């Protein structure tokens, strides 16, 4: 059966006094794939390493696997499979020897080990590479070997630390699909660390969005995408456009326009508010181009990029910062032109001003990607 992981009151302070993680609770159900998502330095890798047994929580923190307290157990006793961004394959061994390593360490008989290695290589579609040296493999092949090696010992939990970051975009998507299928097939509890929002959505049963050592939100991909609970999450999952507005008696005012049926959620109090200045976060679909008569807002086109199925405009003069608006691919729009837009209120996420570090978060996520 798949292992349930619980972290209770786990915090992490490093030797030099820096607080890497504020105390948090997290339960990962058996067989669940959970993705830890956030910019670099947010603490997501520290959580993974705590589950692995490579880092230990501050005093008071408890980690259990299916109720067994493993808090003070070191990694070699925990039966965890690990996959690293740098692959971490043993260069002095062949592919087959790498995959067999854990079995050898556990004293599995030669025949059984050979059979298991063969199964693993077949499952990862790399059986023809069995006798290759590691330096003869491509990045994608290396990561397949690393996966085979990690699951060959039938670990209680599979931990993946940005496994696809070092690969090129196309391969990343293909391997992502394979990993997803593999995790479903094995039904193993998995923890996956990434800074890539798309990867998180594709793989996670649930996503844990991290910000500066704290959990910003836990939810299914749909919840995270559609109902971000604070400006940081909204921004990090792609709603990078921002406008200012006012809530008056439960109705949203943007400029001279008034919108009904928009809720402003205050994450600090966990309540809906109906008065005060608000920030609106939205993706490119929060605004759509229209003719001047029906326009809510008008701006100036700064840049145009052709994305094939649509045209992406960078528009200034609508919010404090430039906003991104998509329009039909066939439209002919040049930089410098005026563009009229309608606001789609159901695509807006509204927070009271000051509810979270929206703009600094934008900078952080940019760093994480670069």
């Amino acid at each position: 059966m798949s292992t349930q992981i619980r972290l209770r009151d786990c915090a992490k302070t490093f030797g030099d006094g820096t607080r890497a993680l504020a105390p948090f609770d997290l339960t990962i159900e058996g067989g669940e794939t959970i993705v830890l998502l956030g910019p670099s330095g947010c603490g997501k890798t520290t959580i993974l390493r705590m589950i692995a047994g490579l880092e230990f929580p501050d005093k008071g923190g408890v980690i259990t696997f299916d109720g067994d307290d493993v808090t003070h157990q070191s990694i070699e006793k925990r039966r965890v499979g690990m996959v690293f961004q740098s692959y971490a394959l043993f260069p002095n061994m062949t592919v087959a020897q790498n995959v067999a390593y854990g079995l050898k360490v556990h004293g599995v008989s030669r025949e059984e080990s050979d059979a298991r290695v063969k199964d693993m290589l077949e499952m990862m579609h790399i059986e023809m590479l069995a006798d290759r040296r590691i330096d003869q493999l491509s990045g994608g092949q290396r990561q397949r070997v690393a996966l085979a090696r990690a699951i060959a010992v039938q670990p209680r939990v599979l931990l993946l630390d940005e496994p696809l970051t070092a690969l090129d975009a196309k391969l990343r998507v293909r391997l992502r699909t394979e990993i997803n299928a593999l995790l479903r097939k094995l039904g193993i509890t998995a923890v996956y660390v990434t800074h890539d929002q798309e990867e998180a959505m594709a793989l996670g049963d649930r996503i844990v969005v991290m910000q500066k050592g704290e959990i910003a939100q836990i939810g299914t991909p749909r919840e995270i995408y559609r109902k971000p609970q604070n400006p940081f999450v909204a921004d990090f999952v792609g709603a990078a456009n921002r406008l200012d507005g006012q809530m008056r008696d439960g109705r949203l005012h943007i400029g001279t326009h008034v919108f009904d049926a928009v809720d402003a959620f205050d994450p600090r109090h966990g309540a809906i508010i109906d008065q005060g200045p608000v920030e609106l976060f939205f993706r490119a679909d929060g605004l759509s181009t229209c003719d001047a008569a029906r326009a809510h807002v008008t701006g100036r086109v700064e840049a145009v990029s052709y994305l094939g199925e649509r045209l992406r405009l960078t528009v200034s003069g609508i919010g404090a910062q430039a906003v991104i608006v998509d329009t039909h691919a066939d439209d002919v729009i040049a930089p410098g032109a005026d563009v009229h837009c309608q606001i789609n209120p159901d695509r807006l996420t509204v927070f009271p001003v000051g509810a979270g570090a929206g703009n600094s978060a934008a900078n952080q996520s940019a760093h994480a990607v670069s």
Partner: protein
Amino acid sequence: MSSVQNIQEGRSRPSFPFGFLRRATPGAGSPAILALLMTPGIIIVAAFFLIPLALVAMRVADGPDGWATYFVILTNGRYFASLVQTLLMSAGVTLTALILCGVCGLFLVRNRFAGRNMLMALLTLPLSFPGTVVGFMVIMLAGRQGVIGSVTDALFDEKLVFAYEISGLFIGYLYFSIPRVILAVMASAEKLDPQLEEAARSLGAPTWRVIKDVILPGLMPGLVSSGAICFATAMGAFGTAFTLATDIDVLPMVIYTEFTRNANVAVAAALSIALGAMTWAVLFAVRCFVGSSADTAARGGA
């Protein structure tokens, strides 16, 4: 040819008259020029290495036993004992240095502490001493008036003196070898990927297995190359032995005595050739034995 290249590569680049010194491009007709450039090197190798070596090898035939002198050094008890003793001591020094420096080098790379740079400087100090000075230091330590002697005299009423024999030489050579080996180990250790160890541990490997399967293979290139230098030095070094005592039967000392005191040129020549051949053979065997795995580790570690 170089001017043609310059034009192709763009006029902004200043003309470089020695274009042929750049990396040889395939099919550019440079082998002739390269061969010409190598001539001084070939002359030096021939004049100062091949010709003297051949002459020494030939002098063996001038002795009373002729070419059979080569067999004499194997059958004569004193010469043969010296051969074996030198070989064993050099191997011993090399192994001890590798183990000591392997542990210390790894520790120094992985830990940052106050005084680390000072310690590093101290450890590499022997690099600057000639063999005679090392010998002098060994006498200060373990000689008749040495520190160890005084301490054991005070404690057990018996003076422990071992500077003037093979163990003194062992200490001297070990001291001499430590900086070379430790620097090579540290260079290899810095390239070790900590995630390799984490991966091995996640697969259930206890510490000794991590050392055997991950750390040692990673350090192997540095251990092999520095061990080779260490061994060759111990085989041939003379200054320390000469300072300690003239009756230590290591090969360089025996060669010296045969050559200068006994004027036994043929035996001295035969021993010289044997010393060179043995050192070379051991290094070659080590390279064949561990070289391939070390190569793999070095390549894969990139």
